Structures are given as C-alpha cells and as structure tokens.
C-alpha cells in the first residue's frame, strides 16, 4: 500500500471547520436569501405543472371527426420493446378500409419510449402530456380504445413538436 | 428538280388491269430463285424496322411446320402514314400476288390481310379483288386462299406479334421474342408478317428484276419508297421517291419555305430540326439524327407557327393512350413523360427536370418489351434536345 500522506494532511480540517458554526451561519444565510426570492415549488395537486410539447407522457390515440385516425397497421405493436400494445384490425366501409376493433395498451408494460409514436405512419398515436397514472388493479392498467382516444385539438402541442423535429 | 426527287410511280403505277402476269411468271420459278432475287434486290421491310424481306421468307421457309401463314400487315396506325390505304385501294392485285408468291415460297396455303378497323370502307372492293384472285389462283393451280381480318383499332396491333395475338382472338399484346413469328407465329406455326408496301415492292422486284431494283437508292437502302407527306406543306399527298434523298432536298420540294422541323417516321420516328436537314438522308442505315433515318414513310413538316411542345404533347397523349399496359416501363413511362413535360411547361418543375425525363426515355428504350415503348424515346429525345426552349417557355 502506498498512501500519499500529504493529501491526507491537506484534507485535515482546521479549528473553525471543526466547530461547524461558520458553515451553519453561511447555510442559514443562504436560506434567508432564498426566502425573499420567487418560490420554485408548487402546491401539487392544486398547482399543476404543464409540460412542454416534447414531454413523453401516456401514449394516446388521436381522435379526429369522432373517429380514431388509426388504421390498425400494427407497427406500434411490432416496434414496442415492452410488448405493451395490442391491436386487432377490422374492416370498415370508410375510405381508410381498416380500423382497430381493439386497441389496448398495457400501462404496466409501457416504458414511455415513444417508439410507437415515431413509427406511426398516420400520426395516430402520440405521447400526451398526461403523467398522472395511478391504477388500483392490474386490469385497470390495461387501457382500451375508449380510454386512449383524445381529441386532436388537445394534442396540438405534441403534433406541432413532431412535425418540427421528427 | 434534283435527279433524286423524281416521282417514280413504281408502286402506285396503274396496275389494276394487269391480269396477274407477274404472278404467273414468278410462280414458274423455283423457291430458291425467288428468295435469291429478293435478297439480291436488298429489299427491306417497309413498315419501319427494315428487316430484310428475303431473309424473313427464307427463315419461314426453313422453319418446320405443318401449316404456315402469310399475313399482310395493313394495320396502318402510325400517325402521319396513309400509304397502305392507297396501295390497297389502287393496286390490291400487287399485294395479293406477292402474298401468293410468298405462300408458294414458304409453303403456306392461307393468307390473311390484317386490315385496320378504320379502313372498313375498303372491304367490299378488296373482297371483290380477293374473289377474283381466287379464280385466277385456280387457273394457275395455286392452292392459296386469302381472308380479310379486321382489326379493332389498337395501335400496338401493328406490332407483328401483337397482331398475331389479336388474330388468335386474344388481347392484342406483344409476345416475347424469340421465338419470332417466322418460327412460331399465328397458331404457333411459322408465319411471315409483311407490310402492305413491302409486298407491293416485292412484286416490283419480281417484275423489273433485282438488278434494276437495286440500282435505285443508296448503299443499304434500295428501291423506292412511298412517302406520306403531311403537315405544313402546299402539296400534301403520297409520293413515290427514291431512297437516299437528303432532307434538305425533300424540304425544298415539299416545304412551304418556313419549315423548322420534319418528323420522319411518324410519332415513333425522329424529329429533325432545320439545322440538320442537310446532313440527314432517308434510308435504313444508322438511325440517329445526322445519319440516314429508317422510316415507315411518314413525313410531317412543321413550320415556325407550330409549337413543338404541342406536337410532343400530342404524341405522348397518343402513346399513353395506345400503350397496351402490359410491360411496366411503357405503361408508366408514357404517362410520366406526359405529366413531366406538362409540369416543366407550367413551371412546377425546373427545366433540369427534362434531363430526368430524357434518362427515363433511355431506360424505356432498354427495358420496354416491344417497339412501342422503345420508340417513344425517339421522338421525345429528338424533340426535347432540339427544341428545348419551346419545352420550357
């Protein structure tokens, strides 16, 4: 063992440091200073934080004209690294031919990576700003299509962000 | 008038009263002699592609087959040609005789005239001639029957394999070659498909002899040719001219003094601008502007009042409509060329886009299945490169 005794010598505290009092005074001084500055904390849940468009919260389905944009191509389900998404397609007489008869995201599996949004050819699944996710049971953590649909008007920030940076 | 520009009147010369003398004379000769005469004469197909006629007959004669057929291609659909109609109208006996001789040479007992649907008005007269021919054939102890087959108006059916498909009752689409029709044509039997004018010219060879025929024309292009002259000319019509004529001489004779371009060979041929008139001769060698041009006989003259953009647009409309839709390059290429020049003209695409389109025509040339798709490149590239300012502004 070759311990450099010089360094140990240097780190040894002197008298004032040993009694802590000056440091305590300095700490209290800082606190005092902060008391007169604007507050950083929020009174959650009364005060809520509104994330920016780049925030990746709960993935949701875009609802347009009362219907989902999704054509049930299954790419989100394929790309999902956590296998959280399940899609079952069915046929419709609409122009888009195909729609998801079943669209489920298991929020216990979801890791909020945003791959589903990135791969979506229709801009139909996006990451919302929703970060308050609490479940009482495993069953309730599996969100179905009705729970996932969000009107397009509420998702403008994210869509704007995607168009600019995707 | 220069020496070359005489109107020979060899093919359309009065012949209606001729009682099949040449046929009688030629039938007495051996097959080998007949083919040799044809090859010596240097006669090439008058439909535009210029395949040596003698060789075609020889190949069909040599091909094994229980039955063989002679088909006269009278599906004259190339924009700007109207010579076959006149031949069939004025001198059908020349064509019938030549078909009969071809039948004897290759061993066919059946001949068909694939007549363009629009030429239906020719049928009564032609049928009467054919009936007469059958009587004559009986006198000559010749077992050869001719039938008229009416086409339905598809341009691509002028292509020999598509024509055969159409005759077999199938959709008129070109077949893969090989096998060529001389091996497996109509009903998979050896078949000679010759243009109306080729047959009429063949009969001229038999009448005047290969040496006389060979004297006409230049190097590889012998004999005379019917030209359908149209466009901005004071004297449109059909003219029987010798090969080897330079375009400058031609324009001097037929032009209205203000000719800026001549479209040689119809929509699928080349467009020659004024500056190249002198260096261009009409014949079968080469094929590029500046050399001599193969032609089906259509000569369209344009004077300076014409927009070459409209001319090209018109051609492309025609090709996009007439492409059979079978092979990919032609089906989509024609449509894209059409949309493309339109976009450049309207300024939606930059002028450099024309380079892309030229590359596209090159691709069509090497990838398309039949002559239609391959020859779109001819008129497109010759018009676009020579009149690029008209394409853009």
């Amino acid at each position, binding site marked *: 063992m070759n311990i450099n005794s010089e360094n140990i010598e240097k780190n040894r505290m002197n008298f004032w440091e040993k009694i802590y009092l000056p440091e305590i005074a300095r700490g209290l001084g800082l606190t005092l200073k902060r008391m007169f500055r604007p507050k950083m904390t929020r009174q959650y849940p009364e005060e809520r934080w509104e994330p920016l468009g780049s925030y990746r919260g709960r993935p949701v389905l875009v609802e347009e004209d009362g219907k989902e944009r999704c054509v049930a191509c299954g790419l989100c389900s394929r790309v999902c690294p956590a296998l959280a998404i399940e899609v079952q397609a069915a046929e419709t007489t609409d122009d888009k031919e195909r729609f998801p008869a079943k669209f489920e995201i298991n929020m216990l599996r979801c890791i909020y990576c945003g791959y589903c949004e990135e791969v979506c050819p229709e801009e139909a699944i996006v990451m919302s700003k929703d970060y308050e996710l609490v479940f009482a049971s495993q069953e309730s953590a599996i969100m179905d299509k009705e729970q996932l649909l969000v009107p397009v008007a509420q998702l403008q920030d994210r869509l704007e962000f995607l168009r600019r940076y995707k | 008038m220069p020496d070359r520009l005489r109107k020979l009147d060899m093919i359309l010369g009065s012949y209606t009263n001729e009682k099949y003398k040449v046929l009688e004379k030629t039938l007495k000769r051996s097959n080998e002699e007949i083919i040799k005469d044809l090859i010596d004469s240097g006669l090439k197909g008058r439909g535009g592609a210029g395949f040596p006629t003698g060789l075609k007959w020889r190949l069909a004669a040599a091909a094994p087959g229980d039955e063989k057929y002679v088909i006269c291609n009278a599906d004259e659909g190339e924009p700007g040609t109207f010579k076959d109609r006149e031949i069939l109208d004025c001198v059908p006996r020349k064509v019938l005789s030549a078909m009969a001789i071809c039948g004897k040479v290759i061993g066919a007992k059946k001949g068909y005239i694939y007549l363009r649907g629009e030429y239906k008005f020719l049928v009564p007269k032609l049928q009467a001639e054919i009936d007469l021919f059958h009587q004559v054939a009986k006198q000559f102890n010749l077992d050869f029957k001719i039938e008229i087959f009416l086409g339905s108006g598809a341009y691509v059916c002028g292509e020999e394999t598509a024509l055969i498909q159409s005759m077999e009752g199938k959709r008129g689409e070109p077949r893969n070659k090989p096998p060529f029709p001389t091996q497996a044509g109509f009903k998979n039997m050896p078949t000679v498909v010759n243009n109306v004018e080729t047959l009429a010219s063949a009969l001229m060879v038999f009448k005047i002899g290969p040496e006389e025929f060979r004297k006409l024309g230049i190097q590889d292009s012998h004999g005379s040719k019917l030209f359908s002259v149209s466009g901005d000319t004071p004297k449109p019509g059909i003219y029987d001219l010798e090969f080897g004529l330079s375009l400058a001489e031609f324009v001097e004779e037929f032009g209205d003094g203000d000719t800026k371009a001549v479209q040689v060979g119809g929509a699928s041929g080349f467009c020659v601008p004024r500056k190249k008139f002198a260096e261009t001769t009409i014949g079968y060698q080469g094929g590029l502007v500046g050399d001599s041009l193969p032609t089906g006989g259509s000569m369209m003259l344009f004077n300076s009042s014409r927009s070459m953009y409209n001319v090209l647009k018109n051609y492309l409309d025609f090709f996009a*409509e007439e492409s059979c839709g079978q092979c990919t390059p032609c089906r989509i290429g024609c449509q894209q060329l059409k*949309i493309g020049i339109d976009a450049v003209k309207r300024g939606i695409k930059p002028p450099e886009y024309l380079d892309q389109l030229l590359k596209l025509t090159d691709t069509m040339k090497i990838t398309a299945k039949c002559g239609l798709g391959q020859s779109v490149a001819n008129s497109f590239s010759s018009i676009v490169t020579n009149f690029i300012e008209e394409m853009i502004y």
Partner: protein
Amino acid sequence: MPHIYIDGKRIETQSGKTIIEAAYDNGLYVPHFCWHPELSVAGNCRMCLVEVGLPKRLPNGEFETDSNGNIVVSYMPKLQIACATQVADGMHVRINHDKVIKAQEAVMEFLLINHPLDCPICDEAGQCKLQEYAFNHSRGESRFEETKNHKDKRVPWGPNVLFDAERCISCSRCIRFAKEIAKQDVLSFVQRGDHVTIKVQDGAKFDNNYSMNVIDICPVGALTSPDFRFKSRVWDMSFNDSICMGCSRGCNIQIGVRNNEILRIEPKTNMYVNKYWMCDYGRLSYYKKINENRVVSPAVKKNGVQTEVSWDEAISTAASILRKYKPSEMMFVGSGRSSTENNYALARFAKNVAKSVNLDFYERTDQSFADDFLRTNDLNPNSAGCRNVGVSPASDKFSLKKLSENITNGSIKLVYIMDEDFDLEDKYIQALQKAEAIIIHSTNHSKLTEIADVVFASSYFAESEGTFVNTDNRVQYFEPALVTTENLHRMGMKMSRLDKFGAANDRWTQKELRNCRPAWKVLSLLASHFSVNFNYNKSEDVFNDIAHNVGSFNGMSYRLLKKHQGIIVGKSSNPDPVRHNYESHYMKPN
C-alpha cells in the same frame, strides 16, 4: 451439358432452361415479379432484366482475349429478360452490374409511381415482393410527379378472392394461373396504358376449387382473402409446416397462428405432392373446427353426468372399464384423420394389451369431391397410414360396417373410439347408444362425447407432431402449430413474438390453452395400467417403433422425412431427391 457464367461464376445447366431457372437451381437470385416456375412466361414486369453476352471469337475460331488473358465478352446493347432468354453454351450473364442495377431501380421506380403505398393497411405487407424489392433494388426516392391513378378497390372476383386494382402491378400471374392451372379462363386485362386493370369476364365468377392460390402468387397485395382480411399482420403470426387434412392428397401446408388460434392456412411447396398449390376447401373448411368447440380436458361419466377430471383419474377409470370385458367383446376404432403414430399405438394396444382383433377405421369417400388436379375422393388424410400399420379387422364379421348388428346382438359391448366422430352419421350414433361402454378420444364436443363413459381430450394434428400417409403412399411429417399444455415447452419458441413473450396479465395470451393429449400418449399410459410398457416418451419414439416393426417403414425417421419432404412407403432406401424449392413469397422470421 452447356455451362454459363453468371457474374463470372461457372454454372452447369441443361439446354432449354432459361437464365432465371439456371440461376435459381444454383441458388442465385434474379429479382422478378411475373415469372413463376409453374406458369408460362409473360415477360412483362421487366424486373429480371440482365445483361447477356457471348464471348467474342477471332476469325480463326478462338476466343478473343484481352491483355490480361481474360476472354472478351461482347454484351448485347439491350438488356434481356432472364425469364424468357434461354441459356446457350458459354453465355455470360451479369446480374450485379451497374447497368442491370440501374434498370432494376428504374423498373421499381415505375412500379411505385402508381402503387398506392398503403402498406399499413395491406395484408401482404411483410411478405410482399414489391416491399422487399423497394428495399433491395430501389433508389429509395422517386424523381417523378406522383399523382396516383385511381382504380377500383375491393372488387370481389369470386367468393374467396377480393381484388384491389390500385395495388395491382399487372404481372398477369393470376390471369395465367386461371388459364393454365385452374383451367377457368375468366380473367383478362382490360383497358390500355396506365388504366390497365384485370377483370373477370362479364357474368362469370372466379370461383374454381383453386381460386385462392392467386392470393399466394400475387406478388403484391392486390388479391386478398375475405376470410383472412385484416385478421392479423403476418409478422404477428407463427407459421409451422404441416399437412392438410382435407383429403388424402396430403398437400403440404403452413399453418398461420396468432394467439393460439389458426388464422390462415397456405400451401407449402412440395414438388412431389402439391407443387405450389392447394384447394380452397383445404384452406377454409376445417381450421374453424380446430379453433372452436373443443374438448379441453378429460372427462368421466359419474352417475350419468359427465365431469371433468384429471388425466390420471380418466385413465384409471378407462382401465377399470376395459378390465370388465372380454377381448372379443371389445371393438377398437382407429381414425383416418389421426396420425399414423396414434393408429399404430391403438393397434398395438388392441393386439398386445387388450388382446382383441376387432380393429377397424371409418372410411370417408366422396366421389363428388375429387377432381383431376389435387383433390381425391378419399376424405381421410391418413387412410393409407391406417392400413399400413394394421388398423383393419381380422375378419369381416367384426368390421366397422357390422358394428350396429354386433352391438345389437351383444357380441360387442365396449367400443373404444380414437379421434373419430363418424361424421355424426345417425346409423353409428344410434348403434353406439346401445353399447354398454364407450371410451373415446375426441377433439370436439359432439353427440358422441355426450354418450361416452370416458372422454379423453385429444390433440388435433395441428397440436401434435406425427405423420400422414397420403394417397400415393407417401409418408409425410407434420409439426405442431398450436400450443397445448402438453407441448408447451416444445412449442414455446416456435410461436410468434407476442405469443412467445406474453405474460399472464396480457390479454392477448388468454386464448384457450387446451389440456389435450395425442392418443398415443394416453394409450401408452393406459397400457402401463396393464403392466405393459410401451416406452413412448415422444412422438418420435412411436415412429421409430413403427419403422422398426412395420416392414415398409424400415429405415424411415423424422429427420429423413423432413429432409426429403416425405418418403414413399417401402422406398426409404431410395427416396426422392431433395429439391431446391421456389417460394413465391418469403416470410421473415418473427
């Protein structure tokens, strides 16, 4: 034998072959859409263009060489289509060459100009030639105006085929199939230029027995199956090789499974049996039975009520019932719908354990089903297997046809039925109701399972491995495609991605996991109650037993059957050669 050079590689081939065939035989791939080995050559997609040339010869007849001593080849100025150009001795072909690649890129660009690119909603996505080539042989972007043509969508050609004209690339494979293979020449191109589309003749329907094959050979998603449409993405499914049980032809198939449910059946190439095809009946009819109304666990009749019990209890109950009767009072019924292994195990059990010779199987024949292509009149996939392993009565007196009389006159009291429902013919049901005891292996619930004393939940062929012997006596191996509690460990990794990794709280894995067993396994356990040890642990053990004891199967093994795609009975020493099979589309591993 002529030889050609492809990209400088020397290849031996036969004259009369085309370049694409010669290349394919040697594992070289020329991209193509319209060419199909079983169809005539159309040559209209222009994707297989290659550069072709012959070596230059000097006037003295020798090959011209350059300064390095390499042979100088004069290539044709125009590219040739590999599907229609026949090989010539000494021919040089270039596939991976600049000019060829440029042409391929150009053709792909052309094709994609009017293609709707609606891969997200297209069933073909994931196994689509156009998609694959767009990655491998395309520029990646288009240089041209793209105002797509609009054509008809969702046009029914017949009951089993839907046509989407926009996706069609006009390769004409379906037209040629209809004319040359299905012999129903009702399809044709109509219109010209870029409006060209395919139509069924007026007043006709494309409804022949083989119509759905056009869906397989369509290189894009222009043709889809109304039965499968949008049920699943292909990459979410697992595809396992199996044999069709529709008739005794034994067409090789692939079973597409997702969520432990059969969604699709499609042919697998076997040039000795079905080539590239199978009939619509095989695709559509029986898989629904496998999915629905299944017996999912063994049951025993207690006080007249059927109760689900454990396997051990069911087997010991069956053993005690079997002990009650004399061998001559028992009748064992095998099944032409069950594997050779099961039938052999039954025959062995009947003869060696129960000492009974009353053994037969139910024959299904329907003359109207047969046609002159693939379908046969024998609707059992394995009649030949039953006969080969000895499932036949010792005397006519105890044949299945006389079952009714024998039960009525009391000579037969116990009927042991394996995987057979007699097509629920009244004659048999009524006769069996009079029998004193019935033990049955059954796959589906039916009137028969209601009257049985012991019901063993039985695996379908799609849930077990085994062999079928087809009408030409060809022994063919099939592997399981569905998971049961029995084959869970074996099948785990053969399932699709979702099925493989799903956990208990994932709803997609909550489809039925059936507690059913193949009959040989039950019979082997039953035999141990009579102190006979069959020594069967897996299906292969049963087959090795057959190969050892049945003369005509000598020398066969699962490994050889898989390798040779089936071996004809008695010809294991001289099996058909292994072939390099053409697949019209490729399934990416999931």
